Structures are given as C-alpha cells and as structure tokens.
C-alpha cells in the first residue's frame, strides 16, 4: 500500500474491507485468531553483533577482544489450503572471540576479569516450523524446533490456542512449550580441563496465558503471564569461580522456576501518522533474580513509503542469591558463580530502524547500541561485575510478499 493511498481519507466501506482483510495484531505477531494468512512472504535478515573490548582497568588476563556474531535469518510464511498456514524460520550464525572465564581479586580487592585465552570459534543452526489451524472463532498452532551447535543440541515443541471472546475485541491465548537440551562441552574431562563435564542435559517447560483487548479504535493492550521451570544442568561449563584462592567450576542449582508478566500497549496517533509502542515485563525467579524491562518505541510513517522507528529499552536486574564476583570462603551449599549475567546491574539500549517499501519489496536497516553497568540498576550495587557487556548490532533485511 503506497503512502499516498494511506493519506487519503478512507470511506467507512473501505475501512470495513480493510479491517476484515487485514489482521488485528495477535499474540504471536501480525495475525490474530481466525484471521488467515492470505499471501506468501519471504524475509531475509543479516545481523552483525559486536561486543566492545574489555577495558584494561578491568582485565587480568586472556584476550580482550570479545564476541562478534554474524547471523543470517530466513523466514517463509504461506497459506496452506483454506484454513491452515505455515511459518518456517531458519537461523545460522557464526561466533568468534573471547568470553569471560573467571574473576580474581586485584591488589586492592577489586574484581578483575580473566577472559578465555584462545579465541572461540563456533556456529549455530536453528530451525523452527509452525503450523496453524484456523477455526471460526479460534486458532490452534503446533511448533517444532531444532537447534545445533558444536557442543549443544536442543529440540523444542510448542502448542498454542487462541479464542476470540467477542467480535474480535478480546482474545484469550494459552500456550505450552517444552525444550530438551543436550550439552557436550568442548575439552570436557581432558587433562586441560579435568573438572569440566563431558556431557549434561537440561529441560525446560513453560506455560503462559494472556488477554488481548481492543480498548478503542486506536489503542490495544495485551497482558500475558508465563511460568517456566528449568531442570538439569544449569551451570556454565566454560566458566569458573574464584573461591578462597582456588578456581572451581561454575556451580548453580539444578532447578529454576521463573515467572514473567509482559504487558504491551499499541496506540496510533493519526495527527502524527505514527504508532506508539510501550512494553513492560516483570520477571522473578527462585534464584532471587528480579528484573524490570521497559521499552518505548515510536513508528513514524514518512512520505514515499519510508518509515523511521526509534526506540529505547531499559533493563534492571538484581543478583542471584549465590552470585559473587569472587568468594573469600566457600558457600555451605557449594554453589558458586561469577557470571556477569547473574550479577546486579542495569542496561540501556537505543535503537533506530529505517524501512523503505517499493511495491511488493521492503528493505530495512537498523542499529542498536547496548550498554550495561551497575550504576544503571534500580537498586544501588556495591561491587560491579567487570565482565558486563557493551555491544553494537547492525541489521539489514529484505522481504517480499507474493
């Protein structure tokens, strides 16, 4: 649809046709319950993710050059008969660089990061296929996925149901997902890393339920609550902790229960010809990690089928109960982890995306800058983890619908 067409005042009849032909935003993307996919679309996206080098003031050994990841994604969506549609997502990424290994105290007790010595090279492939069956006032979907790395394999399955609770103004959604993961860490059990496990397993089960509500002709809101249980080997086999002067393997509880409450609002402003996005997520788990995520986005339509979308995301988390940068003595429960992802911190990211449509083609270019530090956390943090990450991500995408 061209920008010129969008600018013209639309008749009620035209809007009625548009409203029925296009789909309302649904729980998992563009389509809502009982609104069929009417055309085939193919999307390709390339992304380059690069972490900034560790500053020398926080570095105590190993390579300072951190991860760089190139990602290729392909997505195909197509209708299948009158009441089915199929979505296939492929992802392939290559990773290289050093990652945080363990933290040791400096001369004044300040935590210093030791990085992995040799550059890590790995690649990851992921496929996710989803089939959706549409009924008069509901939809059901089944998804199946497989993920493979040199040292990791996972298979996951998900089911989801959506019900229209009245004139497509309210939708109720419920879903269930299960993932079975196997790890075979590189160099596990060798003379170089005798304490690193040779193989391990974990599984995750998640359930979620939510409402989508149209508030008025320009505003819609969605609220979803999810519960996830992880069981098995949840430690990081490539990380160690510094305990009473000795290096020990990262060791975490073998169970983790978490809840997440996500609420999203979309509001269209006709005078500005733009849409406001507000997303808030509350997260809490039995490792005593509590987090808040707030994202604000604006999608501005511009002449000649251009669209500019700036957004800002704020994140803050508390630490896991067993985390410490390093340990002066061993914990009585034996847990130990100095992983920066379990430390208390806050993060701020800015993103800008430009989209251009030409007929049935669309192109987009995006950039994101992410910084994390202890001072950004909601609650004050006594000691900052030296391994906190800063990254830039650039994405380029091309898509076509038929």
């Amino acid at each position, binding site marked *: 649809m061209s920008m010129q067409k969008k600018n013209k005042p639309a008749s009620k009849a035209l809007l009625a046709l548009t409203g029925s032909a296009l789909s309302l935003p649904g729980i998992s993307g563009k389509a809502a319950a009982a609104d069929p996919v009417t055309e085939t679309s193919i999307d390709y996206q390339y992304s380059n993710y690069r972490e900034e080098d560790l500053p020398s003031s926080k570095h105590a050994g190993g390579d300072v050059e951190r991860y760089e990841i190139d990602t290729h994604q392909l997505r195909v969506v197509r209708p299948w008969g009158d009441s089915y549609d199929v979505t296939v997502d492929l992802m392939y990424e290559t990773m290289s660089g050093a990652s945080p290994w363990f933290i040791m105290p400096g001369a004044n007790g300040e935590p210093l990061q030791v990085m992995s010595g040799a550059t890590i090279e790995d690649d990851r492939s*992921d496929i996710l296929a989803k089939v959706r069956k549409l009924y008069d006032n509901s939809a059901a979907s089944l998804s199946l996925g497989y*993920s493979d790395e040199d040292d990791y394999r996972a298979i996951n399955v998900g089911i989801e149901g959506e019900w229209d609770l*009245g004139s497509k103004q*309210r939708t109720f959604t419920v879903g269930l997902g299960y993932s079975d993961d196997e790890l075979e860490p590189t160099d596990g059990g060798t003379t170089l890393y005798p304490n690193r496990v040779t193989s391990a397993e974990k599984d995750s089960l*998640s359930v979620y339920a939510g409402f989508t509500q149209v508030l008025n002709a320009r505003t819609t809101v969605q609220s979803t609550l999810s519960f996830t249980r992880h069981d098995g080997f949840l430690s990081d086999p490539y990380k160690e902790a510094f305990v009473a002067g000795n290096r020990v393997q990262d060791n975490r509880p073998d169970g983790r229960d978490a809840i997440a409450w996500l609420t999203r609002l979309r509001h269209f402003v006709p005078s500005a010809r733009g849409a406001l996005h507000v997303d808030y997520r509350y997260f*809490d788990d039995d490792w005593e990690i509590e987090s808040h995520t707030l994202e604000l986005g604006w999608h501005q339509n511009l002449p000649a089928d251009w669209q500019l979308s700036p957004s800002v995301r704020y994140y803050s988390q508390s630490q896991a109960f067993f985390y410490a940068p390093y340990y002066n003595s061993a914990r009585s429960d034996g847990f130990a982890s100095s992983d920066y992802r379990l430390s208390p911190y806050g993060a701020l990211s800015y993103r800008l995306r430009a989209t251009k449509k030409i007929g049935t083609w669309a192109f987009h270019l995006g950039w994101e800058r992410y910084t994390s530090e202890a001072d950004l956390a909601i609650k004050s943090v006594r000691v900052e983890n030296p391994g906190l990450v800063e990254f830039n991500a650039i994405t380029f995408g091309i898509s076509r619908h038929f």
Partner: protein
Amino acid sequence: MRLILRFMALTSGLFLLGSLNSGCAVKKVEAWERGELAREEMAWEPDPQEAAYRSHVYFSKEASSGGASAGGGGCGCN
C-alpha cells in the same frame, strides 16, 4: 514460596484485568473502525524476524526471559 505468592497475585491481577475489560468500560469497536488497528506498525511485533533476533540476544546476555510466546531455540550459553 515468594515466587508462588507472586505468581498467584499476578494471575489474580491478570484475570481481574480480563474481567474488567468485559464490563462496560470498553466501548465496542466496529469492523469499519479498525483500519488503524490493522496497520502493520500497530502489530505486537511489526517484524517478527527482527523480534526473534533481539529476543535471542537479550536471552543470551541477561538473566531474564519469557514473554508472550513459548518455544524457539535456546543456546548453549547458560
């Protein structure tokens, strides 16, 4: 126990929200009034592919995960 209590409180809040919405507070929006709601930029995820990528990045760099869907590949990046 803390997690169970919070989960129960949030579940109650969610269903309370759902029941309030079914009352008289929300006016019915007719099909011909939904042109703006149906715009691409009004979707929960206008670009699901980019959303999946960003979700994967945050999942591998932060302690939190979970949202309005389940499934999808994880990674060996505990």
